[in-house]
Structures are given as C-alpha cells and as structure tokens.
C-alpha cells in the first residue's frame, strides 16, 4: 500500500440512466506510467473527471497519496497534488509563459491582498527550472502564448504540471492535435517525467505512443475496465481486441 499513489475502488458514475463508468478498480504505483485506452465513449475521460473532481462520482472510493480523499472540486484536487493537462488547454493566450505557469498561484513579494506585489524574478527562475527539468524548449519566455505553436502551448501546459511538485500527472490526449515533430517533443517531455520518477496517467489513442511511453495499459470498454496488462505481456493486436470487444473479461495482472 505504501508505494501506491492512486487507488480507486468501485468507482462509478451515472448520468441519469447512462452508466458512463461502472465499478472501476484502479491502482497506480510510484513512478509508474499507465496508459488508459478505449474507444470513444468508453469512459476514459469520465474516469479522469471523477479523480480530478471535475465531476462528483456516483459511487466508489478514491485513495490518493495514502489517504482516502473526497475532493470538492478540481482546485482541491490540484492542491492535493494532482495536475491535469486538459484536452482543451487551460492557458491564458495573452499572458507570457511564467504568468501561465503560475496562474492562480502567483508567488508574491509582499502580501497586500489582491494588490500583492508579484515576485516576477522568482517566477521566471522557477519557470526556467521547470522547463529544464521537463526538457521543454520555449524560445522566449516573455512571448505570449498567442504567439506560440500548438506544440509549444502543449509543452507549456505540461511544464506547468511539473512546476508544482505534483504527485500525479494526468494527460488527456496531449498529442491529439499536434503534428509529427511536435508530438515527438511532447513525448520527450513525458520520457523526462519518467526518468524523474513522476507517476503519470496518459489517455491516448496512439498505440505506438502508449507502447513507447507506458509500463502498463488499462483498457476501458462501455464504462468498465476490461483489461489491465503489463506492456511486455501484450501487444497491439491484443489491446485492439479488448478495445473492440473481440476479447472480453477482466484480464488481471499476475502481480
């Protein structure tokens, strides 16, 4: 139990009569990168939304960092150390990189309520450090996000999650809208996170990416977890048969 970062038990979400997520039991260990795969509407995003408390679950329990948790909202989840890179990037286009990294949790020199003086130097330094740590290349920190490419934006969003000593990073299709070169850049960042031992949940449709980056693959189908496989025990065809329903039943890890 000590090395388990996140654990869910019987996690369930229903929207009226629609069973979007049904009895999900999930575990994530320290330093582990787990991929979540599944068809559209299989419950992947719903699962993430329950963990990050963007929505409130219908049933089930969540343990995070050794404690049972009941987050009231995404901000509470973030404060506990769960950082999420959303599909629609939560960046302010007209702000520069440090401002976006520290958005909503600015470091201040003097506390004067809303008129607190910002510690711009510190935030700049911390931003540089975070970019180095994640190996993100951003040409000019003072440029606004508006002037950046899709890949650079995604990199900023990911660097943000890595700035705040997060205990768990969740990425919801981080490369879905990116070109080949930009995807490679984001994947490099994810490898750097792996080297640093930061646990990650990656939602992706990209089979090659998942096998490249993750230790374990969890497949969702029709709101249920139908497979939980170590990378070396499976292959692409196997995963596809679980995604499409050609293979059924919960394949458990022989842990």
């Amino acid at each position, binding site marked *: 139990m000590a090395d388990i970062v996140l654990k869910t038990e019987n996690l369930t979400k229903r929207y009226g009569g629609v069973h979007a997520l049904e009895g999900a039991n999930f575990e994530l260990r320290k330093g582990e990168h787990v991929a979540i795969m599944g068809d559209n509407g299989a419950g992947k995003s719903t699962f993430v939304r329950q963990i990050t408390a963007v929505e409130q679950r219908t049933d089930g329990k969540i343990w995070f960092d050794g404690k049972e948790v009941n987050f009231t909202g*995404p*901000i509470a989840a*973030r404060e506990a150390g769960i950082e999420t890179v*959303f599909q*629609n*990037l*939560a*960046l*302010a*286009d*007209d*702000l520069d990189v440090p*401002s976006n990294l520290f*958005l*909503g*949790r*600015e470091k*201040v020199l003097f506390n*004067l309520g*809303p*008129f*607190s*003086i*910002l510690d*711009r130097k510190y935030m700049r330094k911390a931003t*540089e450090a975070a*970019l*180095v*740590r994640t*190996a*993100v*290349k*951003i*040409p*000019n*920190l*003072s*440029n*606004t996000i*508006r*002037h*950046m*490419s899709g*890949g*650079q934006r995604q*990199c900023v969003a990911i660097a943000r999650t890595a700035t705040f000593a997060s205990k768990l990073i969740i990425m919801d299709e981080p490369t879905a809208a990116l070109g080949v*070169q*930009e995807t490679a*850049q984001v994947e*490099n960042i994810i*490898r*750097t996170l792996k*080297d640093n031992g930061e646990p990650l949940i990656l939602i992706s449709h990209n089979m090659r990416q998942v096998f490249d980056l993750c230790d374990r693959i969890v497949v969702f189908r029709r709101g249920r977890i139908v497979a939980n496989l170590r990378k070396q025990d499976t292959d692409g065809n196997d995963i596809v048969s679980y995604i499409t329903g050609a293979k059924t039943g919960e394949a458990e890890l022989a842990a």
Partner: protein
Amino acid sequence: MAQTSHGVGGVGYDAKKRAWPAEINVFLALVILVVVFELIGRIFLGDSFLFNTRSDVSAIFNEARLQIIILQVSIVGIIAIGVTQVIITGGIDLSSGSIVGATAMIAMSFAQVATVNGNPNPKAMFLAQGWTDLPVIVPVLVAIGCGLFAGLVNGALIAYTRIPPFIATLGMMVTARGIAKWWSKGQPISFPTESFAGIGKGLMPVIIFLSLAVLFQLIMTYTRYGKHCYAIGSNEDAARMSGIKIANHKILVYVIAGVLAALAAVVLSSKNLTAQSGMGVMYELDAIAMAVIGGVSLSGGRGSIVGTVIGSLIFGVIISGFTFLRLDAYYQEMVKGVIIVGAVVLDQWRQRLRAMRA
C-alpha cells in the same frame, strides 16, 4: 536530453516573432498626427502647431497649447484608466459618465459654503442641517463612497446574475443619471469651499490624471490583481480552472472603475465650481474610445494604461488641432468617430496578420 536548455531552438521558432508592444504603434500614430497638424499649420496658416512662434515668449514649444492638449482630456482620462481595466477583463462600463453626474451632484452638496457675499448660500443643499464649510475630505469621501457603491452594484450584477456587462452598466447609466437629476430636482449645485475648488484648479487635473495613470500602470504590471485582469480577459475558463476567484475579481474591477469615475467627478465639479445633473454625458464613450485608440482590445486580455494615456493624448491633439486650424467643432466629432472605428479596424488587421505569421 535532460540537459537540453530551454533556450533558442523550439519548434517553429523565429526570433523575429517577438511581440512588438502595441503602445509603440499608438505612440507613432500620435507623432504622425502632430506632424500632420504641424505641416498643415506651416503650409496653410504660416503658424506652428507645436512650437512657440511668439517673439515675446522665450520657449521652444507652445506651452499653452501643450497644457490645453492634456488638460482637456485629463478628466475623461481619469475615467478611462478605470474603463481600461474593465475592458482588459473582458467587460465594458457604460455607466461612468452617469456616475460622474450623480457623484458630482452628491459630493458638491457636501462641499458648499454657508454664505456668499454675506448672504446665505442660495444653492446650499444642507444649510438647515448646518452641513456647510465642511473640510474638503468630507465631499471627497462622499464621492468615493458613491463611486464605490455604484461599482459594487455593477460588479455584483455582472458577477452573480451573469447578465452581460453591457446590460448591467447600461442600467446603471440610466439609473445614475436619474439620481443626478433627482438629487436637487434638476437645480445646479454651486459655491464650493475654497479648498474643494483647489482640487481642480490650474494643472491639478493633469497631475491627478498622470499620478493615477502611473499608479495603475504599476498595479496592472506588478500585482496579482493586474495579472488576473489579463488572465480573465484572455481566457475566463482557464482562469477559473486555475483557481482565480472570478466573481470577486470582477466586482473589484468595477468598484475601481466606479471610484475613478467618482474622482473624475470631484475634479470636474471643482474645476467648474458647480455641479449639474447633465455633467459627464457621453464621457463613458469618450473614455472607451481613448482606451480603444490606445490599443486596448474590446475582446479582453490586451492593452495597458500607458496605451490609454497615449490614446487620450491623441484625443487631445485632435481637438486642439482642429481649433488651431480654425475648423468647426462639428468636424471634430466626425473625425473622432472615424478614428475610433479606424483604430479598431487596424487592430483587427494587425491581429490577423500576426495569426497568419504565427
């Protein structure tokens, strides 16, 4: 790989893509405008717009004209400082002109003298209560209170009922104008104390305008408040997800705008030595125009107080320039309208060009 720096070499990086501050463009527009007036003056009138041509005065510039240029926009400029913050947050404030009217009436009635030329002040609102010859701090605090209250109502309406800022402040615009007329049943309020009259004397409006501009430029650049203004204006959902308390912030922005409008009312009524219910009509639009000309984006997230100050100077130069060329005031209004639209069109083009290059 981990030791790769964050330096030059990102995807699709172009060193020339660095942001060119919008304020520089606005400043260039100001310079061009001055040069145009100078040239027209030299060619057609044989007189200089900017430089001193009188032999009995030893100065390089025509200082009287420079003073007028900035003096005539100072009061609306004070309002524009608040309006700029509202627009950067993605809102709009149509009520500032009416807040000026209502605040001027209410504040002035606490700034009156008891006797005029040995007779009881015929315009005194509170003669019977003995609220005359009060220290200057009283009317100023009353004014700030008025602005604060109006801003609070604006902000609370926008933050909690989620009606568009356009509608909320339109309501306040009409209501505050009504209050201005009702306060003295349409009568002007005059004869302020000497200390109150001192607030708007001479170049005081300019000093107040520029000090407030510097203060708020610093606040917008160096404080959490400023950062959150830009964040909310540029992506409200992102700001909310980042944990910024949107409702509180919006209320604060409208309160600041209200208080600045109230301060403009104090300066204006002090300068005119009287308050009338029709004071400040159309000021809200002039203030918005100054901000827009100064490069503040009506869609939020972009602009600065510095830009708005330059925008206000463009306004001042146009008015002075037309007077200098002895053109009718009618033309001023027409040209003002064209410039407002032109500034927005130019800004849109600039944005599209940038988006294409990015």
